[in-house]
């Protein structure tokens, strides 16, 4: 559909170009645009060029309806290709998707209401786009990243200096020790599933961190932790982690690497195996910590059937309802990422949570400011100067700062 409009515009402009000649008239079209100049678009990847020309006089404005813009890699008048059309009240344009390897000429033509065209204005010298060392569009993102990372680092540092941080409780985290303890009492194993995604998923990494804590408690209690994985790399990382936990707990001799093993990459092959294994070995505690998809409910329901304590944590919004419905405790989204900080018991890790709260304040502030601007602007009405400037400010916030 888009290309249709483009085609039509192209056709219109071609016809309007031919039209005066067809009628055998001298061009009686509008005056040619003046002072056309081209310059590199700043802060970009080196594929855009800005062109601009003089604003036309007010009385001329009625005459000119639009401008058609063309570009070419050579000065030859036949080689220009159509780029786009803009309204007459604008006098600048950014040409996109150019190639740094070439230099370009630009041409614009003014068109009036009845389709008459002006003499073309052409740039005098060729220009090629240059690539800058910083992407200007991402500058606000850069600042926000700095603020966010800075506040996390700041609070970690604060925590290290010994300032006590108040952090609210998360139900479910206390359950970890309880679950491990119960498994020991019953003499049954603990099942830990670090999700079914690979190491290129942060949730898997967060899951492995929780595993290190679970494995450490299990080593202290001398309980068995079984970790079937759905990815080879996760198996590798989980083995490192569990081994380290057993070492920290002072029982390196009880570490058995065969309890951390690879099953298959296939989601449902994996879950077919785990489901069967759960029914046969009846683990007393099941932990599901990582990225989950449809298998979440198969795991949680089977775990429920065998009467295991189940603690789940994931940031997959679609699977949260099933864990909430079928598990004893569920860490929802951000809580799951916070779990590793809580469980580590190290104060500097808690500092990062405080940093995250700064992020939430940014969110709330951004939303409240933006919504207020827009609402007052709408009430004042976009026709009034006050209203329109508020709306413009909100639009600036949305389209420049928050992109």
């Amino acid at each position: 559909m888009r290309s249709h409009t483009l085609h039509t515009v192209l056709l219109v402009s071609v016809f309007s170009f031919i039209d005066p000649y067809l009628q055998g008239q001298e061009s009686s079209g509008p005056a040619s645009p003046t002072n056309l100049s081209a310059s590199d678009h700043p802060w970009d990847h080196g594929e855009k060029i800005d062109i601009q020309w003089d604003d036309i006089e007010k009385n001329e404005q009625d005459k000119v309806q639009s401008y058609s813009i063309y570009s070419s890699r050579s000065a030859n008048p036949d080689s220009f290709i159509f780029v786009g059309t803009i309204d007459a009240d604008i006098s600048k344009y950014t040409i996109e998707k150019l190639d740094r390897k070439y230099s370009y000429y630009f041409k614009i033509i003014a068109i009036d209401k009845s389709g008459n065209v002006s003499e073309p204005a052409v740039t005098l010298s060729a220009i090629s786009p240059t690539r800058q060392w910083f992407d200007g569009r991402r500058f606000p993102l850069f600042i926000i990243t700095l603020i966010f990372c800075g506040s996390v680092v700041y609070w970690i540092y604060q925590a290290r200096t010994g300032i006590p941080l108040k952090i609210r409780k998360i139900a479910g985290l206390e359950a970890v020790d309880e679950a491990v303890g119960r498994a020991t009492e019953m003499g049954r194993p603990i099942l830990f599933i670090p999700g079914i995604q690979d190491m290129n998923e942060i949730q898997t990494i967060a899951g492995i961190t929780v595993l290190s804590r679970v494995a450490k408690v299990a080593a202290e209690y001398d309980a068995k932790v079984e970790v079937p994985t759905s990815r080879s790399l996760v198996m590798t990382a989980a083995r490192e982690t569990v081994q380290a936990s057993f070492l920290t707990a002072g029982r390196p001799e009880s570490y058995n690497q065969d309890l951390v093993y690879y099953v298959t990459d296939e989601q449902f092959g994996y879950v077919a195996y785990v489901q069967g294994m759960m029914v046969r070995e009846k683990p007393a505690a099941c932990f599901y910590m990582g990225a989950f998809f449809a298998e979440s409910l198969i795991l949680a329901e089977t775990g429920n059937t065998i009467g295991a304590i189940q603690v789940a944590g994931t940031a997959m919004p679609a699977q949260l309802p099933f864990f909430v419905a079928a598990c004893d405790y569920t860490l929802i989204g951000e809580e799951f990422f916070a779990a590793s900080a809580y469980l580590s018991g190290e104060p500097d890790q808690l500092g990062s949570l405080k940093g995250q709260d700064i992020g939430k304040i940014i969110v709330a502030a951004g939303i409240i400011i933006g919504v207020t601007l827009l609402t007052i602007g709408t009430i004042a009405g976009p026709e009034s100067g006050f209203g329109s400037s508020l709306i413009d400010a909100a639009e600036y916030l949305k389209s420049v700062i928050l992109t």
Partner: protein
Amino acid sequence: MNRETLISVSLLAVGAIFIIGRVLFSEYGMGKAYVQAVEVRSSGSEEDLSWTKYESTTQRKYHEAVKKDPDQNDYQFSLSRTLGIWVAALFTLFILSFLYKDNPLYKIAESVVVGVSAAYWMVVGFWTTIVPNLLGKLSPGWIKSWAMPGLDTEAELLYLVPLVMGVMLLWRLAPQGTWISRWPLAFIIGTTAGIRLIGFLHADFLGQIRNTIMSLIVITPETGFDLWESVKNIIIVIGVLSSIVYFFFSIEHKGYVGKTAKLGIWFLMITFGAAFGYTVMGRIALLAIRIEFLLNDWLWLIDPSNIRI
């Protein structure tokens, strides 16, 4: 023999008798597959090479062709695909049998699916990643000479880096110096953290703030004040803000904060309920297609697409 075993054995017996009866005594039987022979001519070489390809066809077409010309060879009965349908049907039943209880048949299906799927993904990884993206980048001429004659790229020596890291990763299997495998692991985790940190801040964090900035009062040029749209926007803004309060870690959920967090939980619960409702749909459709397979392709009890006589 206890009650459960008795039930399962008698169910199996009834099923088996029904199927044997259907295979032997019904006019067309059941669970058969037919193919159509199609000749493939090679276009790329001077020699005139050709071979036969077999495409699945329907029982109806087969019988129509046989009726027309009993000696025809285009449409054939396919033993391998018939066997396939039976294997697939039995595997389907084996998996479903787990719902009753764990049993040897399920264990067989489980063992097969683990073996086949593990190897399946390895084969896919080899032909779609290792060959084109690693070997094809390092030595395109060699890959072109045996595996991908259509390949048209130049060698990129940069891909030696993943190759070397891959070797380091495999060093775990060596008797000594297995610590070296932590280096590629560290690289993977570091790059993942970098990509995700910035990616999530950009796409989800900024993006969702941007989407939530909207006017609480909606006035359209045509109809003026739009109450309904305004209410919608107000609910969304309140919902987002209160749910974010729920996630606050450094403030205890007491007083006003507690009340707002409570509101946030309500929003989350409605969200979860909606997701649950939607998901139920999908899951039932999945079961439906398996049962259709059993009734249609295997047992030939139903024929919704009208492909059989």
